[in-house]
């Protein structure tokens, strides 16, 4: 398998692993925006782009360390995991470490915090940089003490000599000691000696979040701060005919109204005044709208009929082998990210330099996009990451940063905080794209899959900044930027075709990706990209093939699976679930399983569920969920559990409830009543997550591993309970009831 990160080989180990790095093959356009070119220095993770050790680790005279990462905390527990890795290798107590996250003025550029890449990219870089820093400090101690480095011991931020002499990091670190490029080998701590890694360390960000600390960009309140709100057009491509700016400017507390083409913003001293100014301004606007959206009632047909660029991404054997045929057209609607906190940013222009505090996933890309939009040199724009509510991909974070930038430019010197309204976040979200999968497969007389044909239709899942035209404000301004060109993420990670190639051993197998470049609905990256629907479809068809050929779904999967780590998670989930001994306590009960290795490159995850379908109204009760996960070397076991539990709950919500709605002109699902998500009455009875530990292994991204398997397991369990296969998402009570009444 090709890895974005270099492969490694263990050379030796006596208390430590000495690891050397070898380059992997060619690279393609990636979701993180980095790693797309050949390796520069042959170094692991993001160290390859930023090899200086002190770009990652600084130690001050007191011996405390500052760790710098180009990745961002998104609620996934990244800060804690990176600190654990650094503390482990530096042999420093956790409390002597602090962390600086993505900041264009201070940290390495690590592209987007996306694609479950952060531990591989940044975790790997920091781990190696920390191990090498520790060695440099020890060597310096050896020099000063006149002893051999091998005779010294390092612990608790000090280097100990054989004669009781000791030197602290603070004394050892002199100018430039760490201002060197990382070498080709690192002496990594062996898993047997871990004191901080692989332990459930409490998350460093949680105490502030549960006690009302300033934890989010939303909570920043610099001196002199103003509040901004924007008025968005009612639909894509709407143009502003007229509006009454003067009326709003007369309102109490309003500082300024900004109109630039179709962009409208209000700046006020107080937040509530900004909201009222926005509402008043919106009420005075007249927009020219046009019907540009497809018929939502038949979204799959609309997607399949649009022009597409078609690629056969996988082809083995000869298609058309006979057997029992299963086929289906699977589809998912557009999904919204739906952060509970609408996106927010703070911007300030001082002496021609703009600083933005933002919860973007890519500070460097956003900086370039904003500088482009404002026609400023990039070095005059600084983007500093500050936490937002969970984003699950490309949400309104970048757009609101652009809004704040434009408003801040209108009031030089004053910081301006802008938060989107709920309806703006919902209507203008770069949605997780609607998609279609057509799958056709046969199982032969021997019970093995004889033929497999998978086709997937999707628009781009990668419309993040970079080009200014990815930002709403840049498209609305009087000197608008052209729409950004649609990006097709390439295999092996893929975009809409992510996980479209089955991991199962199938002799005759063909997979075609139809990339739809032009689709009027806005779409971009949402957790797991195309993997959710591809896995959903693959696992549904596998299940049907098993049922139709009288084979057990778990045994059928194992029969076609050669990857031992995949087998291990399937077997572990099945045995912990009690799959073989499962008994339906009533005819309304169903059992289902789903499996995927995320991107066919990252963590392995299997999910088994038990559901009860209430015949009266079609409602689904998820009684229990059991997952097994292999994410390679685990850094924070509780963090991994938290991520997988979250993925299971979120995917349950996508699968059973969620759908963006629109008419021919406007997005209509603009609040939580029109876009229902899971609530407490429909959470599973129990969720169990079992971790397969792989000490000493690489990090494999885990944050998006559960989505596909969970959706599939639910659909398969509903099929088991009702006898009906559902192809169209979401599987709502209304759809279930209709199918069962039929």
């Amino acid at each position, binding site marked *: 398998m090709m890895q974005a990160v270099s492969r490694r080989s263990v050379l030796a180990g006596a208390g430590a692993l000495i690891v050397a790095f070898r380059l992997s093959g060619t690279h393609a356009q990636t979701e993180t925006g980095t790693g797309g070119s050949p390796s520069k220095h042959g170094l692991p993770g993001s160290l390859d782009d930023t090899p200086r050790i002190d770009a990652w680790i600084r130690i001050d005279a007191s011996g405390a360390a500052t760790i710098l990462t180009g990745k961002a905390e998104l609620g996934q*527990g990244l800060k804690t995991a990176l600190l654990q890795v650094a503390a482990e290798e530096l042999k420093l107590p956790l409390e002597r470490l602090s962390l600086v996250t993505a900041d264009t003025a201070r940290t390495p550029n690590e592209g987007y915090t996306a694609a479950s890449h952060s531990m591989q990219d940044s975790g790997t870089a920091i781990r190696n940089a920390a191990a090498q820093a520790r060695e440099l400090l020890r060597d310096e101690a050896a020099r000063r003490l006149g002893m051999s480095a091998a005779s010294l011991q390092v612990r608790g931020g000090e280097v100990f000599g054989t004669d009781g002499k000791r030197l602290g990091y603070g004394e050892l670190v002199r100018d430039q000691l760490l201002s060197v490029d990382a070498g080709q080998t690192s002496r990594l701590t062996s898993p047997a000696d871990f004191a901080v890694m692989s332990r459930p360390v409490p998350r460093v960000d*949680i*105490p502030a979040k*549960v006690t*009302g600390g300033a934890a989010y960009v939303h909570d920043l309140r610099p001196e002199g701060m103003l509040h901004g709100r924007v008025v968005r057009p009612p639909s894509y491509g709407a143009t502003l005919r007229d509006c009454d700016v003067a009326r709003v400017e007369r309102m109490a507390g309003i500082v300024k109204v900004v109109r630039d083409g179709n962009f409208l913003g209000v700046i006020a001293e107080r*937040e509530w005044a900004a909201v009222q100014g926005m509402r008043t301004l919106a009420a005075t606007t007249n927009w020219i709208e046009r019907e540009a959206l497809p018929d939502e009632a038949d979204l799959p047909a609309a997607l399949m009929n649009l022009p597409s660029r078609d690629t056969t991404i996988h082809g083995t054997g000869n298609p058309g082998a006979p057997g029992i045929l299963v086929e289906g057209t699977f589809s998912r609607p557009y999904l919204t990210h739906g952060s*509970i906190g609408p996106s927010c940013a703070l911007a300030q222009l001082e002496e021609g330099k703009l600083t933005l505090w933002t919860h973007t996933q890519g500070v460097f890309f956003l900086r370039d996009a904003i500088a482009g939009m404002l026609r400023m040199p990039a070095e005059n724009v600084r983007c500093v990451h500050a936490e937002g509510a969970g984003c699950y991909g490309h949400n309104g974070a970048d757009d609101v940063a652009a809004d704040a930038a434009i408003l801040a430019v209108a009031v030089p010197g004053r910081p301006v905080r802008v938060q989107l309204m709920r309806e703006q976040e919902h209507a203008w979200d770069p949605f997780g794209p609607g998609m279609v999968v057509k799958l056709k497969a046969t199982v032969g007389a021997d019970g093995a899959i004889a033929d497999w044909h998978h086709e997937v239709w999707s628009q781009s899942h990668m419309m993040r900044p970079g080009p200014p035209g990815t930002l709403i404000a840049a498209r609305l301004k009087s000197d608008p930027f052209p729409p950004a060109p649609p990006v097709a993420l390439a295999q092996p990670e893929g975009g809409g075709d992510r996980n479209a190639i089955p991991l199962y051993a199938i002799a005759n197998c063909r997979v075609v990706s139809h990339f739809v470049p032009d689709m009027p609905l806005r779409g971009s990256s949402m957790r797991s990209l195309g993997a959710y629907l591809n896995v959903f479809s693959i696992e549904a068809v596998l299940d049907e093939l098993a049922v139709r050929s009288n084979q057990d779904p778990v045994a059928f999967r194992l029969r076609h699976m050669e990857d031992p780590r995949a087998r291990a998670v399937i077997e572990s989930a099945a045995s912990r679930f009690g799959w073989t001994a499962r008994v339906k306590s009533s005819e309304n009960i169903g059992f289902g399983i789903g499996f995927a290795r995320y991107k066919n490159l990252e963590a392995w995850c299997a999910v088994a569920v038990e559901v009860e379908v209430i015949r009266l109204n079609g409602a689904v009760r998820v009684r229990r969920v059991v997952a097994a996960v292999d994410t390679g070397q685990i850094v924070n076991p509780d963090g991994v559990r*938290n991520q997988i539990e979250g993925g299971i709950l979120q995917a349950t919500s996508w699968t059973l409830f969620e759908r963006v709605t629109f008419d021919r002109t406007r997005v209509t699902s603009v609040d939580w009543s029109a876009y229902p998500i899971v609530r407490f009455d429909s959470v599973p009875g129990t969720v169990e997550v079992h971790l397969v530990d792989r000490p000493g292994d690489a990090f494999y991204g885990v944050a998006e591993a559960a989505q596909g398997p969970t959706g599939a397991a639910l659909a398969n369990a509903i099929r088991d309970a009702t006898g009906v296969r559902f192809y169209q998402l979401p599987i709502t009570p209304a759809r279930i009831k209709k199918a069962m009444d039929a």
Partner: protein
Amino acid sequence: MTTLIVNGDSRTIEASPDTPLLYVLRDELGLNAAKFGCGLGQCGACTVIVDGKAVFSCVTPVMVLEGRTVTTLEGIGSRDAPGPMQRAFIAEQAAQCGYCIPGMMMRAQALLNRDPHATDESIEAELQPHLCRCGTHMRILRAIRRAAEEMRPKTVEARTAR
């Protein structure tokens, strides 16, 4: 001008009387915990306790609160001295992004103040107005059950045994 008791202190509010409490708490009083989630009474992120009851501060104009008692998450403990609800959420690591959490905690606190013996079912039912997009639900329920355990008045025997 409106006067409220916020976390035990009497506060005179300058904001116009139609201002929702949420904006007063965040923008005028500089409190962080209550969050803007929807402004529509649909998500619970803004929940605080008014006279013992959980309310959506985003849709409660400050004019109806004259002389009343408002408790926010800041009023049930601090980082240095966390209250039982906060300790329980930390112990269960019951947050991902955490944005929904303060609202959940306040509704749970109001429930347990009024019914320390709240059952699992009544906790779940009480939280129905609250949304969490990260899928932290299982941990949130565990944390509230843990807090209930801790907040429950100890029985006579338990008290004398101490």
